[in-house]
């Protein structure tokens, strides 16, 4: 008896490509104190920019930034000192570095100025403005580009550019040269994807149950789709091996349907410029933000500076909420798909990990039997616990936002990233009175939270206070979304087939398929 051939596919899937290893390296880079060098959101944004080939605007901004730091730095390694000498890369530390450099050295070349929001660069053919908040992303982008193509070619391009960069054409030439290097590297290193096959598989499946152009997506047909993709072929190579990936693909499909038809074609890396006939792309109209109203997980805001300096959620809470928050309002329409992903998706992840580390047969068999699958009722209770935690954190945040002594720097300019989503920002309203009971509750909640950021000493830091102000909006959004989801779960619990019954049925379904996919063969 031996573990089925499917193990090979699991191992194959677990292999890191050079690109994902590189992105993981940048995401994993640490400051001197061992904390992440970049905010989590930066690493996610970087991955999106690279794998979707939407990096050309960033590359152009990067070249302008290199030009500016070259003009205020000292030594042979002027731009390197800025990009790699910065320890924790945040908008505030970048601003401090630039201010100090200019105070000490002044500008070696004219045309540069530091404003409240960022860098203002004046060229012979126009101005270019770059905000401090964007520079963290550009630093991560540079680290990635050097990891791709090597230091020497990048240094040559920058050396050439900074010799002559008195007009923007010089900077665009450098950006184009870098874009070409990145494009060539990605051509060989972007992992092969089966996105087209996946898309067609989903569309074909949905069309089988419909005679018209109108199709339906439900919890049940997502489960049936996944079963159909994997059932009966122990060593079948499916693009939807994991249940969670199948749900994720349906979420992506629904979002693409929602936004795709209203947006223009995706832009690919092409020469920057305004000559459309020559195939150039105007960098300022590239890579627009997500469409207005598109869902963005509120956890992303908590992952961004300055809110990321506060431990609103620990690792377990973060992981427990991640998928639900990522799916957004679609989770309300597909509640069981979320629940199945949380419970049986976790079991499947443990199975693949066990196979990868070549765990004993008995361990794998226990996992295939889903013995440790968390019943839906228990998982629901855990969601309730998270909701209560979010409530406690909200109360603690209320204490911070209403405390009488906000510290000496209340009037200081907030260090809000220039590209931060400010729709969720709750303005500081120090001194506003709360009813006594509410004030006591919020103070108690604050004192009970023994986590980074939740001490009176921490509140002396204006960045921490700003982090609370921004985090407050994200916490409200997260708790509202979780509460909506719990309402749907409560409704399911009151159905004839309550959650226990659904779990019992699902248990057999997943046990059966996991055994086919990963079990022993005669």
């Amino acid at each position, binding site marked *: 008896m031996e573990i089925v051939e499917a193990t090979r596919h699991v191992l194959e899937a677990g292999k890191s490509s050079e690109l994902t290893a590189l992105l993981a390296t940048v995401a994993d880079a640490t400051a001197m104190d061992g904390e992440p060098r970049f905010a989590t959101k930066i690493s996610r944004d970087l991955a999106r920019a690279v794998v979707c080939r939407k990096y050309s605007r960033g590359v152009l901004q990067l070249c302008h930034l290199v030009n500016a730091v070259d003009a205020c730095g000292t030594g042979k390694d002027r731009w*390197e000192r800025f990009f790699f000498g910065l320890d924790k890369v945040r908008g505030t530390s970048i601003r401090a570095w630039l201010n100090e450099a200019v105070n000490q050295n002044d500008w070696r070349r004219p045309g540069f100025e530091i404003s409240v929001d960022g860098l203002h660069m004046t060229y012979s053919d126009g101005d270019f403005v770059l905000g401090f908040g964007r520079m963290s992303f550009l630093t991560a982008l540079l680290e990635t580009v050097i990891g791709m193509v090597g230091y020497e070619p990048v240094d040559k391009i920058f050396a050439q550019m900074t010799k002559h960069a008195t007009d923007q054409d010089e900077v665009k030439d450098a950006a184009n040269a870098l874009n070409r290097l990145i494009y060539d590297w990605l051509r060989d290193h972007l992992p092969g*994807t089966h996105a087209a096959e996946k*898309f067609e598989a989903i569309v074909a499946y949905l069309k089988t149950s419909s005679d018209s152009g109108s199709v*339906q997506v439900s919890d049940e047909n997502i489960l049936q789709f996944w079963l159909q993709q994997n059932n009966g072929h122990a060593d079948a190579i499916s693009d939807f091996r994991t249940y969670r990936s199948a749900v994720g693909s349906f979420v992506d499909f629904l979002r693409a349907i929602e936004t795709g*038809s209203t947006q223009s074609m995706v832009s690919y890396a092409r020469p920057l410029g305004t000559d459309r006939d020559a195939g150039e792309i105007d960098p300022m109209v590239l890579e627009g933000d997500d469409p207005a109203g598109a869902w963005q997980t509120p956890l992303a805001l908590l992952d961004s500076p300055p809110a990321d300096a506060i431990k609103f959620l620990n690792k377990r809470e973060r992981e427990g909420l991640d998928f639900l928050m990522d799916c957004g309002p679609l989770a309300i329409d597909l509640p069981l798909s979320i629940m199945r992903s949380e419970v049986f998706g976790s079991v499947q992840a443990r199975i693949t990990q066990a196979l990868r580390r070549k765990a004993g047969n008995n361990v794998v068999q226990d996992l295939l039997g889903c013995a440790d699958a968390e019943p839906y009722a228990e998982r629901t209770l855990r969601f309730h616990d998270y909701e209560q935690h979010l409530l406690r954190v909200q109360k603690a945040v209320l204490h911070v936002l209403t405390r009488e002594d906000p510290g000496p720097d209340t009037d200081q300019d907030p260090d809000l990233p220039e590209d931060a989503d400010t729709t969720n920002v709750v303005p500081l309203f120090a001194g506003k009175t709360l009813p006594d009971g509410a004030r006591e509750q919020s103070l108690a909640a604050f004192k009970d939270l023994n986590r980074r950021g939740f001490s009176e000493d921490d509140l002396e830091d204006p960045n921490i206070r700003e982090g609370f102000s921004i985090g407050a909006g994200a916490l409200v959004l997260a708790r509202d979304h979780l509460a909506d989801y719990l309402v749907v779960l409560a409704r399911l619990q009151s159905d004839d087939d309550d959650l226990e019954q659904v779990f019992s049925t699902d248990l057999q379904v997943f046990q059966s398929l996991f055994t086919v996919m990963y079990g022993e063969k005669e």
Partner: protein
Amino acid sequence: MTIQINLPDDQSMATVQEHFADEDNVRQTLTAMREAEPTIAFSRLWRFASGEVTHDADLLTALRHDSKLAADVNALLQKISWSHLPQAAAASTDEDLRLRETDLCAIRIESSRAEPDQVYVIIELKDAEANAPRTLITSAAGGTLERLELPAAQGGVIQVLLQHDDAVLIALRDHGTEVFLR
């Protein structure tokens, strides 16, 4: 619960498919990143090359196995160093190297007369008034990096006494080694 959708026409479907591909690529990449084994970030390389960090065992190990990383560190050291002494000429590789020279300095290796197990490394600056280097870094062809903190110069001369089996000395004698003075 059911979500009812109308599939778009073929033209719009192409755009939808591109959006799907983007989202799918990002999702796959972020998932793969959780399993990926991080390597050495360039910022870590810079910290070491610039002297901000002087000990990084993992980095030194990685340099021996990753030729691209080794090329990066050599290029970086070449840029930021006070003087770069490249690999010696291939014609003389049959014997240990005793002299390396650039237009800024010369590095001589001389045996100690008093202690047979010890060897002098003497760095003579061609401009005795120049700011003297403080660190010597050797980079062997196989990626092995060695670092030696230098004493202050006396009259344009820096002198270090090393054991004959010191790793820095072995590297200095090797024709395939590049030397950087910082």
